[in-house]
């Protein structure tokens, strides 16, 4: 388990992720960033600011596409999904904070395809913590970390309601 006091700087990781994504946007300027609520949307917005072309950002809330609805019910804070551009025929980069079981990515892909048929979808995540339960892998990843099952890795924004707020990692081993 990594030292709680030495978690990497999320803002630096996002800058590195933006650098690795930059060639895609140079080659295909119509590429769209789609963030997965909540952390993925914050990262996608930050990436859009950092990339020279400031690509459009969409956001998906996967609550209506979860595979555990019958066990866990509906999340009390479903956010509206917003895909501001027509994604049909365009390359899409799906952005999430933590890649873990892969179930969120599966749900996000299903939701995305209800908005149109993208030319391609790639997955960019800030952290890949292992523990996959589905055949899903990140195309771009800033941080590979192995965490025990009970650990909870969360991206926080301070202040929460400020889009320019500082993004930081927190880890608790509940």
């Amino acid at each position, binding site marked *: 388990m990594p030292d709680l006091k030495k978690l990497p700087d999320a803002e630096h990781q996002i800058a590195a992720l933006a650098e690795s994504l930059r060639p895609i946007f140079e080659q295909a300027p119509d590429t769209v960033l789609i963030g997965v609520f909540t952390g993925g949307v914050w990262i996608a917005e930050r990436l859009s600011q950092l990339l020279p072309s400031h690509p459009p950002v969409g956001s998906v*809330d996967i*609550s*209506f*596409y979860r595979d555990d*609805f*019958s066990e*866990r*019910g*509906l999340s*009390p*804070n*479903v*956010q*509206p*999904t*917003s895909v501001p551009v027509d994604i049909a025929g365009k390359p899409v980069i799906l952005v999430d904070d933590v890649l873990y079981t892969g179930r969120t990515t599966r749900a996000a892909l*299903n*939701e995305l395809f*209800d*908005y*149109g048929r993208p030319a391609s979808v790639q997955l960019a995540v800030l952290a890949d913590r292992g523990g996959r339960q589905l055949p899903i892998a990140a195309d771009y990843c800033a941080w590979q970390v192995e965490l025990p099952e009970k650990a909870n890795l969360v991206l926080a924004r301070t202040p929460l309601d400020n889009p320019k707020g500082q993004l930081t990692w927190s880890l608790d081993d509940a």
Partner: protein
Amino acid sequence: MLDPQLDADGNLIHLLSTEGLSREQLTRLLDTGASFIGVSDRDMKKVPLLRGKSVFNLFFENSTRTRTTFEIAAKRLSADVINLNMSTSSTAKGETLLDTVDNLCAMHADMFVVRHESSGAPHLIVDHLRRTGRNDIHLINAGDGRHGHPTQGLLDMYTIRHYKGGFEGLNVALIGDILHSRVARSDIHALKTLGAASIRVIGPQTLIPTDIEALGVEVHRDLEGGLKDCDVVIALRLQRERMTGALLPSATEFHDRYGLTHERLKAAKPDAIVMHPGPMNRGVEIDSAVADSPRAVILPQVTFGIAMRMAVMSVLAGGGA
């Protein structure tokens, strides 16, 4: 006594009435409704939330619009919908209500949407489901007698919140046939809980229930007086099909005293919205000029109604609010 809408842990598993719902539960339902609005705007108007579930529409009383909006809501959640027109089915052959329910349970129903001309019929079914241990089947009251029409109440609250931003400080008027209106009761309970400043009911004495003040509303006989400083004006349909006695001289006379016209609306705030649960009697409770004016939000009510019914279905099926 346990609220029959709730399970042992206090989760909402049936929707019988807006009465008894907490502000938190109402707000959660409205917030969930907001997230379903976008689904109906897409080309692909479906989400897979209730895939494989069977929703039975049991309408013991005729209704086209409410049944249709429930059907659309269920289909946009990917549920299978079975419409039963009970007035022409086995009840007509003598089967009891609860025998019908047992039969539908044996067909593996997951949800019942019930409309009945008798107040309390949905309660009776919920009690029966509880007694027979079928806690996995959910029920939504789609209108029972004069008692309640909670999804209409919720969509009205959604509409008010959408246009007014909230409920604090709002003056809301309900006009006309309060006596026969289950919508009025559902609205009043929800508005009370959500904290509207004042709720006025306006109409002739014969169409206002004698005990209505106990719900915490002001009663007005005079339309302009009741509309003074109102933010929200809800015209109710004159339910002439339910009027058995001589409650009204004529629809024309009702219109002359209580019909909503632009002139009379001057008493309300300039930005007051006008709502109506439909179907409208133009020229009776509402003038065409008002119904077709920009301040009328009657068609948005219909759109919001789909989202709110989707919200109710998914919150109930997902283990409650």
